[in-house]
C-alpha cells in the first residue's frame, strides 16, 4: 500500500489541505458568528472550495479503487457485507454498491433502505449476539448519532487510509466515526406549477405560494426536516446558536397558509401537490434528474440566496459486525478517490472534497454540475444538538396542529 506514488500523493494532499485551510481562514461572511461554541467553526474551508472549479483546471481524473490485498483476502473469507439504510438514489449509493461489488467480488446484503438513523443504531443493539444476515456491518447516520453510538459501545474504531484528508471537525479523534458527505438545504421547485421560482427563504412567505411549500419529513423526527427549520432561522435573523427564528418563520409560513403538512416525495412534487419542497441539494438534484428522465415536469433546484445551511452525515462500523473486514474494505472504497467521486456523481459533496479538488481529482463535468453553495455554514455538534432539541420540543406548540 505504501508505494512511493501513494506517499507523494499523500504529501501533496496534506500540503494542499494545509495551504487551503490557511488561505480560506474566515472572512466575515463565510461562517456565521458562533460566539457561543467552543469548537472552531467546523469545515469553514469547505464553502470556498465548493463554490466553483479551481481556476485553470482542465478537468481532473481519478483512479479506480485498488483494494489492499491483505484486507481484500480477509474480506473474501467473509464473503459478504451487510449494509443498512442506503437508498440507491441517495448520494448515488446504487452505483457505489455495484462498483464495490465489481472491484472486490464481495456480495452485499442490503437491509432496509428507508431506515432512519435511530433504526440503524437499534439494529446494531438488537443484533449484538447475532452474526446472521440481520446484523448491519456499517452505518450511515446523522451527526448527532455518532457520539451517542460510541458512548454506548456500539461502534468500533477504524481509520481509513485517507484519514488525514478528512477535516478535523468532521471526525472523531480515535476513529469511531467520521463524516462522509454533506449537502446544503435547497428548494426543489416544480416549474410547471410555480412560474415565479422563489430565490430565498423570505420569498416563501409570499401569498402566491399559498399551499405550496412542504418539508420532506416530520420536523419532530426527520433530520432533513429539522435542519430545514434550523436553516430558515439563519435567514430570519437567527444564527447557528439560535434556532428560534426558524420556528417563528415556519409559524408565519403556516399561518399564511403556505405550508402544506404533506410529507413531500418526488411523486408529490411531480404531481404538483408540493411544488416547493425543502430538501438537501443532492436529493433535490437527483429527483430533478429522475423526473426529467421520465418526461415529467421540469424541476428547478434553488439554493437560497441567504441562509445556506450544510448538514453532515457520518459513517461508522458496528462493534459487533459479523464481517468486520468487509466493513473496513467498504470504508476504504468509500474514502478512495473513486468512492468519493461516486458520491459526488450523486451531487453529494464528499468530505474529502477540497483535497480532491486541490489534487485535481474531480472531472470538470462533475464540477460543473454542482450547485453553487458558497457561504454555506456548518453547525457544530453542540449547536446541532441544541437546535434539534429546541425544534423538536417546540414544533407542536409554536407551529402546531392546525387541525379542523
Amino acid at each position, binding site marked *: 500500500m505504501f508505494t512511493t506514488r501513494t506517499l507523494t500523493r499523500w504529501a501533496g494532499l496534506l500540503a494542499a489541505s494545509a495551504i487551503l485551510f490557511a488561505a480560506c481562514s474566515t472572512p466575515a461572511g463565510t461562517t456565521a458568528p458562533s460566539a457561543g461554541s467552543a469548537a472552531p467553526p467546523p469545515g469553514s474551508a469547505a464553502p470556498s472550495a465548493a463554490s466553483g472549479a479551481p481556476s485553470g483546471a482542465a478537468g481532473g481524473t481519478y483512479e479506480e479503487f485498488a483494494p489492499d490485498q491483505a484486507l481484500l483476502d480477509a474480506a473474501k473469507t467473509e464473503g459478504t457485507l451487510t449494509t443498512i439504510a442506503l437508498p*440507491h*438514489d441517495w448520494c448515488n449509493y446504487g452505483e457505489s454498491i455495484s462498483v464495490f461489488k465489481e472491484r472486490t467480488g464481495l456480495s452485499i446484503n442490503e437491509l432496509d*433502505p428507508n431506515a432512519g438513523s435511530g433504526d440503524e443504531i437499534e439494529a446494531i443493539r438488537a443484533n449484538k449476539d447475532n*452474526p446472521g444476515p440481520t446484523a448491519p456491518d456499517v452505518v450511515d447516520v446523522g451527526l448527532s448519532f455518532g457520539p451517542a453510538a460510541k458512548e454506548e459501545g456500539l461502534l468500533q474504531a477504524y481509520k481509513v487510509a485517507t484519514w488525514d484528508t478528512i477535516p478535523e471537525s468532521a471526525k472523531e479523534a480515535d476513529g469511531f466515526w467520521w463524516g462522509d458527505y454533506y449537502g446544503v438545504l435547497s428548494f426543489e421547485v416544480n416549474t410547471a406549477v410555480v412560474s415565479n421560482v422563489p430565490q430565498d427563504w423570505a420569498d416563501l412567505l409570499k401569498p402566491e405560494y399559498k399551499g405550496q411549500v412542504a418539508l420532506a419529513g416530520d420536523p419532530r423526527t426527520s433530520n432533513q426536516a429539522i435542519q430545514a427549520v434550523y436553516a430558515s432561522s439563519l435567514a430570519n435573523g437567527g444564527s447557528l446558536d439560535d434556532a428560534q427564528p426558524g420556528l417563528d418563520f415556519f409559524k408565519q409560513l403556516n399561518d399564511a397558509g403556505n405550508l402544506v403538512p404533506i410529507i413531500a416525495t*418526488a411523486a408529490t412534487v411531480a404531481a404538483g401537490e408540493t411544488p416547493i419542497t425543502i430538501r438537501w441539494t443532492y436529493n433535490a438534484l437527483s429527483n430533478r434528474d429522475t423526473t426529467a428522465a421520465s418526461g415529467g415536469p421540469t424541476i428547478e433546484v434553488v439554493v437560497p440566496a441567504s441562509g445556506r445551511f450544510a448538514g453532515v452525515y457520518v459513517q461508522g462500523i458496528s462493534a459487533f459486525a459479523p464481517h468486520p473486514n468487509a466493513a473496513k474494505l467498504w470504508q476504504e472504497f468509500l474514502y478512495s478517490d473513486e468512492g468519493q467521486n461516486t458520491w459526488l456523481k450523486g451531487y453529494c459533496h464528499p468530505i474529502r472534497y477540497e483535497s480532491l479538488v486541490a489534487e485535481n481529482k474531480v472531472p470538470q463535468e462533475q464540477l460543473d454540475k454542482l450547485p453553487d453553495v458558497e457561504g454555506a455554514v456548518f453547525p457544530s455538534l453542540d449547536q446541532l444538538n441544541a437546535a434539534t432539541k429546541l425544534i423538536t420540543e417546540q414544533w407542536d406548540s409554536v407551529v402546531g396542529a392546525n387541525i379542523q
Partner: protein
Amino acid sequence: MTGPAIGPRAPGALETIAASARVGRRRRPRAVWSWLIFLVGALYFLVPLVATFLHSIRTRPDIFLAYRQVLADPDFFVGLGYSFVVGVITIVVSLLIIVPTAYWVRLKIPRLRPLVEFVTLMPFVVPPVVLVFGLIRIYSGGPLILASSDLGLNTMLVGAYVILSFPYMYRAVDTGLAAIDVRMLTEAAQSLGSGWARILWRVIFPNLRTALLSGAFLTLAIVIGEYTIANFLARNQAFGPYLSLLGRNQPFTPAAVSLISFALTWMAMGIIAFLGRSSRQRVQVAGAR
C-alpha cells in the same frame, strides 16, 4: 263451496298469492337501494385508483414507461411470488391455531372469551419495529437460535405474520361460529362417535367457509403489503423490501407498482376464492337463535 285444497284456486289462495306478490314487489325497491349503495361504494373505492393511474401515466414520451419498467423487472415477480408463498403458509398456520381456539373458547370456556379477544387485539398495539427487534434479540442467543439461518429467519417471519393476522382471523372465525349453532353440531357429531379432531375437520371447518375465506384474504393482504418486519429480518426476496429498494423518490414508478400489485393481489384473491368455493349447496343448519 268446494274446490281443490291447494293450488291457485284453493281457498285462501288469493291471499297467499297477494302476499307473495307483495313480497315480490317489496324485493324490487330493495334492489334499487342495493345498487345505490354499491355504486357509492364503487365510486369511493375506484376514484382514488383512477387518480393514481392518471398520475402514473404522466411519463413522457412513453406514457406507460413506469409500467414497462416494473414489468420488465424480474425482482417484482420474485418478490410477489415469495410473499404469496409466505402468505399461504401464514394462512394455514393461523387457521390451524385460531379455528380450534375460537371453537374451544366458544364451546367450553366462554368466560375466557374477553381475555382471548384482548390477546388477539394486542398486535395492533405493538409497533412492528419493536416486534421485529424483540424477535431478533430473543432468537439470536439463548436456547433457540433462529436469527442466523435462512430457515430460522423465515420461521420468524411466518411467526410474526401469524401474530399480525390474529385480530382479523379470530374475528372472522368468531363471527362465522356465531352464525352456526356450534353446540348443536358438536353434540350431533359426538353422538355419532366423532372425536374432536374429526369434529373440527369435518363439521366446523366446512361450515366456516366464508369466514375462513375472509380471514385468508385479510392475512394474504397483510403479508404481501408488509415491509418493516421483512426488511429487518433481511428477507430481501419479499415484496415489501423490493418496494423499499425501489426508492421513495421516484416520481411515477411507485404509483405504477402499487396499481400492478393491487391488481395482481386481487387476482390472487380471486384464485383463493375460486379454490374455496363450495361445490355443493351449503347445509343450512338452524342458525343462531
